[in-house]
């Protein structure tokens, strides 16, 4: 039973990692990364590592995507102000 759950979690992680790389727009990639973080947290919990799961949930699905989003916003805004004055 637990074996089946582990296999499903592993496959979800693999699929989501593929999607995160294939998504070329960084803002959307941040969302996919946050889903990947969630699946990783599930996998770690199934592998009996609640400590790591908790840490992955906080970092992988909240902090890293947030930082990427903020960076995207910064570079996009830059592009806009640059074209603005003309």
């Amino acid at each position: 039973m637990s074996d089946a759950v582990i296999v499903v979690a592993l496959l979800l992680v693999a699929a989501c990692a593929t999607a995160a790389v294939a998504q070329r727009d960084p803002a959307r990639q941040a969302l996919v990364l946050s889903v990947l973080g969630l699946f990783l947290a599930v996998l770690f919990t199934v592998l009996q590592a609640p400590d790591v799961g908790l840490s992955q949930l906080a970092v992988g699905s909240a902090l890293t995507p947030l930082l990427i989003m903020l960076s995207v916003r910064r570079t996009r805004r830059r592009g806009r102000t640059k074209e603005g004055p003309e």
Partner: protein
Amino acid sequence: MNRLRLWLLAVGGAGLTALLVAACPGLPRFGGRSHPYGERAVRASLDRHTANTVASVNFDQRAYDTLGEMSILFAAVLGCVVLLRQARDEHRARPEPAAVARPVRRYALIVLPVALVTGLYVVAHGQLSPGGGFQGGVVAATALHLLYLGADYGALERVRPLAVYETSDALAVCAYLVLGLAGVLAGTAFLANTLLPYGTFNTLSSGGAVPLLNAAIGMEVASAVVVLLATFLDQAVEIEEKQGS
């Protein structure tokens, strides 16, 4: 040029794939019974009355390793602050308060205290239940930023005097070092967990120095994440380049 690069990637990737797949059968069997290090770590953790073995490994048996991790964290945050400081050709613009949808505001403000307390709880019970300074610090620090969702950027800046968090980041690193040096002064080794009584198993004050080191890490991670998010938010929301530069 581009074609050449793709070919190089394909050849290198194929080689690496072959090596990795060939290495898989040589790894310890998945789910196997032989974990010599794990068993010894569990025994040492129980000897020192620490219920959460992972916390015991992090803050007792491999506390020196955690010191290294903490230095990386500290250096990375320092690097971010230096790289993203306000340059001479930039100025600050006050972002005007944006309208927030009422449900978003309400739920963000309800969740904020719950998440903050959860983070602190996770830090405080690191030696007993899953969690600890690393996880709880991140939870507490990101929870604080729900204020940005629920209210606006100005409100966030008022509850987040950045200098305080920068100082507490440095203080936490110092606290960890001082706790380590206390062992040396008492005649044992650096970061050796022999000074404090081990306490009663499965209570908050068990595990000797583990809760203290854990709290230092919690403080460090929380202030590090607050400082990091603040520098990135500054870049995304406030700092603007001079027009036409």
